[in-house]
């Protein structure tokens, strides 16, 4: 899940609700996580320095936006590479072709 969140933030700064709806719509409702569980994840990423947060008032509401940091960008690259290796290996097994 870290990788998906970091990937969304690599595109633009987002607030929690926006991330949840974006994940659901892009995955054709496959990733319908329980929304409250997103926040411990975001706060952990913030604490480890992968994202930073700031508040902004839009449409009369103050929202807490998250932004990908350089450290978060490096983490995303590592996770994406690991995922590609892993999914390639799974596909190779399922399709019966050597990796």
């Amino acid at each position, binding site marked *: 899940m870290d990788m998906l969140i970091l990937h969304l933030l690599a595109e633009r700064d987002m*607030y*929690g*609700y926006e991330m949840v709806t974006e994940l659901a719509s892009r995955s054709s409702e496959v990733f319908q*996580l*329980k*929304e*409250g*569980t997103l*926040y*411990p994840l975001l*706060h*952990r990423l913030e*604490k480890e320095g992968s994202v930073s947060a700031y508040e902004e008032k839009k449409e009369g*509401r*103050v*929202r*807490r936006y998250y932004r990908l940091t350089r450290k978060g960008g490096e983490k995303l690259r590592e996770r994406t590479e690991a995922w590609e290796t892993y999914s390639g290996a799974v596909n190779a097994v399922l399709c019966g072709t050597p990796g």
Partner: protein
Amino acid sequence: MNTNRSMAWLREAVGGIKYPPDRRKVEKELYTHIMQRNRDFLEAGCTERDADEKACEAMGDPVEVRRDLAAIHRPFWGYAAFILRILVIGVFLWALISALRSSPRIVYDLGPLVDENRFTVSGEWRSQDSRIRCGDYTIRLKQTAYGKEKETGESCLLLELRTFTADPFLDPLWFIYQPVLEDSRGLVYPVEQSNSRNLVFTGRRLLFVYLQPGADWAVLTIQGPDGPERLTIRLEEGRA
């Protein structure tokens, strides 16, 4: 909008965060989210009660969220950051006070202002507490003593006044305009101004009067911006 269940969900979810500023911050963020979810369900045609229930359901198990949030927002780090902030402010204030103390414009000599080459103080300083308001200043009679002028041998009454102002743009050492002293017998004396010292927001000034002996009390009159102001001075029996 009926949000009773949402509020209960929120309270449960953030209840494990023990450091209050962190708890308020997370609560605000989750509140914005759950209210947005409520509005979306209402717009989709749900009743208020249904929207409230569905929003809680979408948020997940509050106990699980509580546990995860509490693990991240540990009170130790919150309080450690708070103590660090206090220490930084303390060090800054200490540095500021040290800088002020070393400034040559500020004198911290709190002893009497008497010029020992000119006067001899006879007896003890007698504490007084009489004050008046003069424009932007408060003038307080702090203490009095009897003395003698060394050159002429004349007896005099020494008065120490403190002037205070809360306005940082004003000189705390306010000049005492046209001071006149009248004793209990109706005798009027001119008052002379001697040494002065400047403190932070406070000025100290020494006045002296060649007072005839035998008075029980005296009144010092000062010209303020709103007219004459009077300070009463108690005198020791059998002295001046």
